[in-house]
């Protein structure tokens, strides 16, 4: 039972344009959401997060938007750079649990120079 879903396995974007990665979840108990970035042969690295009490969090070129009613979040990267090419995982957890993360299946972003 996949509680966090990333329906687009891949995305290609031209350098300088906006990249939008989407994520949907089914468990309404989730109250914290994170995005991780993963390069080949490396572990995931934390990118940005958002609490369920917010609908937007921004950090430099990265912005995460949360729509709780739709159980949907998205990661915007603008402007996209070739070094952003990686697999992006959406993850969620709920604080009454053990803090373990529920991950989506990932979206491979390719930024074309």
């Amino acid at each position, binding site marked *: 039972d996949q509680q*966090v879903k*990333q329906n687009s396995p891949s995305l290609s974007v031209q350098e300088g344009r906006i990249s939008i990665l989407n994520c949907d979840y089914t468990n309404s108990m989730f109250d*914290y959401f*994170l995005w*991780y970035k993963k390069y080949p*042969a*490396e*572990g*995931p*690295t*934390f990118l940005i*997060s958002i609490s369920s009490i917010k609908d937007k969090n921004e950090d430099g070129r990265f912005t995460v938007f949360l729509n709780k009613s739709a159980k949907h979040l998205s990661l915007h990267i603008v402007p996209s750079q070739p070094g952003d090419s990686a697999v992006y*995982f959406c*993850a969620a*957890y709920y604080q009454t*649990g*053990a*803090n*373990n*993360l*529920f*991950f*989506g*299946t*990932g979206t491979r972003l390719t930024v074309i120079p």
Partner: protein
Amino acid sequence: GAGVSQTPSNKVTEKGKYVELRCDPISGHTALYWYRQSLGQGPEFLIYFQGTGAADDSGLPNDRFFAVRPEGSVSTLKIQRTERGDSAVYLCASSAQGNTEAFFGQGTRLTVV
């Protein structure tokens, strides 16, 4: 070291053998997690330690899998009677108590032949 370290980085073993995978978390991090990532999937939770004790082992797939963290620092994931379906990347992560952003190691790629 400054990050989470996992050894070995690659392990090839024969079906039916026993393997041990090691994780050195970030110094001072009390929470430690093991995840398993199969090809084309996101990481899936296996077990969570808070200090020396396994606070949640609900993700372990069966009794062939076991993990320990005897001194609250280094952890070892043990797999008995390995099967080809155990082939995956095993990821370890640690976080400071109360901190939600877990830091991942580079993973151990286990191949059972």
